[in-house]
C-alpha cells in the first residue's frame, strides 16, 4: 500500500484561497450547531456570488434576529444585522438607496412569517429588486425550541409540550399570493442544486423569494429530520409551467418537499424601474 501523501495546512489554505471564495468569508466562525444546514447555505451563497462576479463590497446582506439572523456576521460583506422581523424593510431601503448594490435578505421562519409577517406581503408586491432567502428550520432555535409559524400541527415543542395547536403557514403559497415575481425552493442538503436556484434568484430582476429547507438538528430530533426530509424530496413535474401562477400554487400545496423553480414573472418591472419609467412618461 502506498504511503498517503502528506497533508500540509498552509498548502491546503493556499489551495482554498486560490478558489477566490475566502474573500467573502469573515474571520468569525459560525455559531450554528454542528450539522446545521445553514453552513451549506452560507457556502452556496458565497460560491454563487463569486461565480456571478459580484464583488463582496457591493453585497448588502440584511438579516433579522434568530439563527438565520447571525448569517451576515460570517460574511466579509456589508452586513446589516437588524431587529427582529424587520430585515425586509431595511433591505428595501438599502436597495432604493443604492441600486448598484446586490441586496440579500437572510431571514428565518419566525423572523419572516411571525414577528415580521406583515412586511413580506408589501415588499413582495412592490417588487423591490432584492433576493429573500427564508431559512426555514420549522422552530425558534436561538431561544431553544419554541413553536414557529412553520412548526407542524401537533408537534411537541418547548412552548407547546402537549403538541403545537397552531396550523403551520405555507411560505411558498404566501409568497406567490403576495405577488413575488420569483419563487423557488431548495434543500440545504443539496448544495449543487441550491446553487442553481440561488443563481436564478439573484439574476431575477425583481423580488425573489427562496424557501430554503433545513432541519433543526438540535430541537427536533424526531419529526423533520435530515433523513425524513430527504425521503420526501421531489422535483417539479417535467411539464411544470413556471410562468403559470395557478400551477405554482398547486405545486405549493403538495405535501412533499418539491424543490426547484415554482414561478417566475419576467415581464413585470421592479419597483425602481417602475418609478423611473413613470417619471419618464410624466416628463414625456
Amino acid at each position: 500500500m502506498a504511503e498517503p501523501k502528506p497533508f500540509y495546512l498552509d498548502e491546503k489554505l493556499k489551495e482554498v484561497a486560490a478558489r477566490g471564495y475566502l474573500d467573502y468569508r469573515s474571520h468569525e466562525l459560525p455559531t450554528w450547531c454542528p450539522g446545521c444546514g445553514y453552513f451549506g447555505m452560507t457556502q452556496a451563497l458565497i460560491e454563487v456570488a463569486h461565480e456571478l462576479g459580484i464583488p463582496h463590497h457591493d453585497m448588502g446582506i440584511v438579516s433579522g434576529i434568530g439563527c438565520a439572523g447571525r448569517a451576515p456576521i460570517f460574511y466579509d460583506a456589508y452586513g446589516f444585522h437588524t431587529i427582529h422581523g424587520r430585515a425586509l424593510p431595511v433591505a428595501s431601503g438599502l436597495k432604493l438607496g443604492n441600486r448598484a448594490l446586490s441586496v440579500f435578505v437572510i431571514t428565518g421562519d419566525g423572523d419572516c412569517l411571525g414577528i415580521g409577517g406583515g412586511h413580506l406581503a408589501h415588499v413582495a408586491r412592490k417588487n423591490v429588486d432584492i433576493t429573500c432567502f427564508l431559512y426555514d428550520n420549522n422552530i425558534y432555535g436561538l431561544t431553544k425550541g419554541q413553536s414557529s409559524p412553520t412548526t407542524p400541527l401537533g408537534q411537541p415543542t418547548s412552548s407547546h409540550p402537549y403538541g403545537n395547536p397552531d396550523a403551520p403557514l405555507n411560505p411558498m403559497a404566501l409568497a406567490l399570493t403576495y405577488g413575488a415575481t420569483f419563487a423557488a425552493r431548495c434543500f440545504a442538503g443539496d448544495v449543487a442544486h441550491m446553487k442553481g436556484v440561488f443563481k436564478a434568484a439573484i439574476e431575477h430582476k425583481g423580488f425573489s423569494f427562496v424557501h430554503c429547507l433545513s432541519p433543526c438538528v438540535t430541537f427536533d430530533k424526531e419529526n423533520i429530520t435530515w433523513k425524513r426530509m430527504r425521503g420526501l424530496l421531489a422535483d417539479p413535474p417535467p411539464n411544470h409551467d413556471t410562468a403559470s401562477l395557478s400551477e405554482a400554487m398547486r405545486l405549493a400545496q403538495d405535501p412533499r418537499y418539491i424543490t426547484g423553480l415554482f414561478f417566475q414573472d419576467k415581464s413585470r418591472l421592479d419597483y425602481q424601474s417602475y418609478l423611473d419609467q413613470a417619471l419618464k412618461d410624466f416628463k414625456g
Partner: protein
Amino acid sequence: MANVDIVIEICGMAGEGVISGGEILARCMSDQGFDIMSFDSYPAEIRGFGKCVAHTRIGSKPILSPGKYSDILISLNDKHAIEQLPALRETGVVIYDSMPRAYLEEDESIAGWIEPGMTSYGVPLLQLSHKAAGDARGRNMVALGALAALFHINPDAMTATLKKRYAKKNQIVIDNNVNSFLEGFNWTRENIVKTDRLSFGGVRAKAADKAIMSGNQAVVRAALDSNIHLYAGYPITPATSIMEYLARQLPLSGGVIVQTEDEISAIGHVIGAGFAGKRAMTATSGPGLCLMSEFINYAAMAECPAVIVNSQRGGPSTGLPTKTEQSDLNIALFGASGDSPRIVLAPRSVAECHSFTCMAFHLAEKYQTPVILLLDFFLSRSLKNIDHPKLPDKKWLASNLAPSAADLKDYKRYKITNSGVSPRALPGTPGGMHVATGLEHNEKGKPVYDARTHTAMTAKRYRKLDHAAREIPRPLWTGDKKDIAVGVLTWGSTAGAAMEAVDRARAAGVRAAAMSPACLAPLHTADIEAFTAACRSVLVPEGNFTGQFANLIDGAVTRQFHRLSEIPCAPIPAEDIFDKIMDIAKIAKGRKVKA
C-alpha cells in the same frame, strides 16, 4: 406711525370657501408687508356641514402667536358663527349676511347676538355674489371686499393677490373671484357708515416678498434643500401632508417615495437608505412614533443616521388626531430600552421648521444617530409668512466622516475616538466591509458581551451628543437679562406665545424674560441654569398634563418651578401665560393672586 394687531376670523360651513378666503387674506396682507399667522380649524370629517374657522392674525410687528381672541368675525354661516362669538373681543366687529337665502328666526341670526360694545355690519353677501358671478360661491370674496372697504385694505393689492393665487385656473374663475370681491368692496363703501375704530390704514407697511408656508411645508422644503433621497411614511394626521408634498416633488429630483405598510417599515426603509449613505426621512405622529421606538433604538446602537419628524397631537393612543399638544416629549427622549442616545430638536416657529430640518439631516449624518424633530399639530398646520428660506450651508450637505485609506487597511467601523464619531464606510467601498448590528459590539462590529466594551461603547455613543451640542444653537433668551422677576422657560411651539407674553409683561412694568432650548437632547443645561439663576421665579408653560419639560429640567436644575401644564386642544395662548406672569409677579391689576 400707528401699529396694528388685528385678528380676523372667517366662520362658516365646510365648502363655503372659509379656508380659501382666509388664505387669500393672509397672502394679500403679507404681500403688503404685514406679518401674518394663520391657524385654521375644520372638522375631522371629510364631508358634511361641519364648522370651519379661518383664523388669521395680522400685525405691523412680528406675530409670535395666533392670538386667543378675535377682533373681526366674518359670518358666512350664522349658526356656526354664533358659536364662535365667545372668542370675539368685547369691542369686536361682526360682518354678516344681511339678506341670507332663508328666513332666520330672531335667535338664528348673528345680528341678534351682538352685545353692547360690539359693532355689526350687515352686507348682502349672497345677493352681491349672485350679481357679480351668478351664483353663491363668491360669498367669501364679497365678504373680503366688505372687509377691505371697512378696514382700509388696498383693493388693488387684494385683486393682485387673487390673480396671482388663481393664475393656474380658468380665466372665468379669476374673473368671478375678482368681480365678487369688487362688488362687495364697492357696495360697502357706498352703503355702510363705519362706526368702529379698527383700521389697517395709516400703517406704513412696505410691500414685501415673503414665502407663506406651514411647518410641514417648511420641513418638505428643507428636506429637498438637504438633498433627501428617500422618504418612507405611513399616513397619519397631522404628518401626512409632508408625504403628500414630497410625493409630488421628490421623484422630480430623482428621489424615491415609499408608502409603507406601517411605521415600522417606514423607519426601516429610512435606516436602510441611511446605511447606503443616502439622506432619508420619515414623518409621523405619536402612535407611529411608538411603533418606531425599537428601530430608533437600533439606529442608536448600530449608529445609523435617521431623520424622524414627529408632529404631536393629543394623546395617548389614537387620542385627538386633529388637536395640538406637546405631550410626546417623553417618548421622544426616553422611548427606548437601554441607554439609547438620540438628538431631539424642537423648532419654535415655521422658519425654524426649515432650518432645524436642514440641521437634522446634517447632525444625523455627522453623528450617525437618529434625530427626532418635534413639531405639533399647530406648527405643522399653521401658516406663517417668513423670509424665503436659505439653502443649507454646503458643509451641511456632505457631513459623513468617510474613512481614510489608512483607516481601510484594518477597518474598524466602530473605532473609539475622542468625539465618539467613527469613520463610516458606505456599501460599495472596497475594504470597508463590516456588519452593523444591534448587538453590543467591539470596534470591528463583532458582537461581544463584556462589561469593559459595553461601557466604552455606551460612553462613545453618548460622547457624540456632547459634541453635537456644541454646534446646535444655544437656548434663545429674550427680554431682561438680570434681576428678572418672572422668567418663562418653555419649548417648541409654545415659545412664541411665551415671548409675546414676556413682551407684554415688560410693557406692563414687570422685569421678565423668556428662554426656550432648540434641542431637548442634548440639553444645554448650563444655559438653563444661568437663566434660572437670574430669575426670582420661573414659570414653565407647556402643552401637556404632566409637565414633561418641567420634569426634565427639574432633574437638570435644582429649582422650584411654577407650572402651567395645560391641554386646551389648542396652542397655549400668550394671554394665559401673560396672566400667569402677572399673578406670579403679584402686580396683576384687579386680579387675585393665586396661592
